[in-house]
């Protein structure tokens, strides 16, 4: 394994460790005693005390931190206070909504952005380019939750093609489930596609000006062939960097968009767990989201090495 990859891997582990400390500390100082909240405001003190002991809240913070992380490493995510079910099961259930949602949104983003970005770059300075750049500027300015509401207005209220929200579950079949995720995915993807299309366009334009592209064209390669064989691969580095960041944004964006469409995903779980003071769920779910973000960035680093062998050779 090259030094580059080893370094990236160590950073990956250190970031995860740091994230677990931050999440734990942040929720330590959260006001409101979860035992008090769960047992109700007028519960007798001994009941609250009992519950606190049962939840392990009477132990010192350091001990609780190690118990939590130790449990996570063994795949034991603890028991939710509010739902009284293992957090692992709870999160797995919600991920069945959030992960497909983020993946569909990412797929839509990539397809739309690469197509529009390449198209605009090829028509640099002409009407198609100016039009796409104008629309993308608008796309960046639109809040994803508002775009979600607009999609509901059009497709659920006006045209009545789809329900205004909710999720039938995968048991009802793949198509109804995907249909329920389609509008939220479009709402999430629009902003990201607008950003990525601009990045793709400028990356392609940048590479098109390089000497080796001129050489390739001088050797008789058609514009299209030069674009596909020489330009695209070289333009991919900035595009993939942004895509990695965007997947994180999409995952985080699900918190808001799941609330717009009443989808029972991880985002809504976090949101509800915060208001229920269901700390163990918040800790696990937030750490999981952060871990996914860090993991995606790690994969992006690995992809750099594949796309640009110079990085591996230099062992930067």
């Amino acid at each position, binding site marked *: 394994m090259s030094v580059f990859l080893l370094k990236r891997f160590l950073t990956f582990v250190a970031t995860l460790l740091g994230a677990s400390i931050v999440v734990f500390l942040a929720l330590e100082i959260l006001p409101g005693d979860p035992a008090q909240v769960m047992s109700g405001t007028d519960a007798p003190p001994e009941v609250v005390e009992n519950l606190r002991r049962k939840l392990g809240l009477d132990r010192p913070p350091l001990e609780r931190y190690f118990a939590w992380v130790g449990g996570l490493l063994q795949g034991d995510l603890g028991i939710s206070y509010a739902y009284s079910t293992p957090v692992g099961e709870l999160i797995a259930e919600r991920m069945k909504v959030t992960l497909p949602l983020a993946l569909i949104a990412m797929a839509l983003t990539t397809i739309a952005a690469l197509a529009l970005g390449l198209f605009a770059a090829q028509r640099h300075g002409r009407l198609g380019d100016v039009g796409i750049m104008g629309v993308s*500027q608008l796309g960046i*300015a639109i809040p994803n939750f508002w775009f979600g509401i607009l999609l509901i*207005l059009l497709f659920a209220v006006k045209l009545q093609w789809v329900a205004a929200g909710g999720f039938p579950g995968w048991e009802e079949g793949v198509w109804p489930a995907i249909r329920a995720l389609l509008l939220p995915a479009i709402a999430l993807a629009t902003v990201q596609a607008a950003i990525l299309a601009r990045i793709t366009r400028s990356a392609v334009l940048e590479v098109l000006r390089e000497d080796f592209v001129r050489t390739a064209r001088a050797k008789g390669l058609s514009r299209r062939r030069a674009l596909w064989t020489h330009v695209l691969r070289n333009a991919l580095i900035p595009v993939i960097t942004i895509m990695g960041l965007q997947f994180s944004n999409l995952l985080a964006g699900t918190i808001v968009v799941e609330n717009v469409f009443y989808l029972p995903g991880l985002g809504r779980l976090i949101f509800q767990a915060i208001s229920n003071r269901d700390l163990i769920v918040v800790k696990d779910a937030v750490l999981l989201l952060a871990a996914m973000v860090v993991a995606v960035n790690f994969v992006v680093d690995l992809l750099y090495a594949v796309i640009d062998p110079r990085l591996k050779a230099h062992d930067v």
Partner: protein
Amino acid sequence: MTAAGVTIGRALRHRSFAIGAALTLLLVLVAALSLAWTPHSPYELDVPNRLRPPQAGNWLGTDSFGRDVLSLLMVGAQASIIVGVVAVGIGMAFGVALGALASARRGWAEELVMRLSDFAFAFPAILSAIMLTAILGPGMVNAIIAIGIFNIPVFARVTRASANAIWAREFVLAARASGKGALHITLEHVLPNITSVIVVQGTIQFATAILAEAALSYLGLGTQPPQPSWGRMLAEAQTMMFTRPELAIFPGIAIALAVLGLNLLGDGMRDLLDPRLRRSR
């Protein structure tokens, strides 16, 4: 024509800058006007006149409490501007200081600042903001703090990168040779030379802060009633979607125009202040 006149003329001919400046000016003017005058009081409930369609007296209609939508939108601009200005101010103050420190000290200070900002980027902004407002409690001040904290690493990175380029310049070498210390050089030579980069970034972050405030308020974690905010207007409008769909349109347009204006203004300023960048965009 004077030099200033030439500069202003060049700026106004720049399409992004002109449109962006006009939209941003509109946002500021509406917010300023709403301090002195609105068609109706945005706090006055008038239940018999609830959910009226747009008409004379209520140009954009009334909401489910009978409040005038235009007045709510005008006052809502205040919340966006306050959150944007203060959150970006927090991010700029701490971020620029950290970035300048990293650049002036190099070595472990730079490593520490950069690793910390890498780390901050591992937490998506909206997730951190939701967690922070959950910890501190919902409200405008806490939303500002949450958004401001996320802005710190953004400014730290931008400042360090541009400051490093200035530190490599010959006039800085001359200043060092004449015995000036790192703090002196940073204040006298480095910061004045990177002001434009920071101002441009500040404009873009302002737009991001408006979006974040709207999202937090939509979720009920940001600006609290009765203070009007565009995000909460959208949340309220969503419950009325089948009876008065247009209520969900106006606040969204307001957010989009404000964000569009600031983004265009930032892009335009970047082009005008650094012509070298124009080629690649």
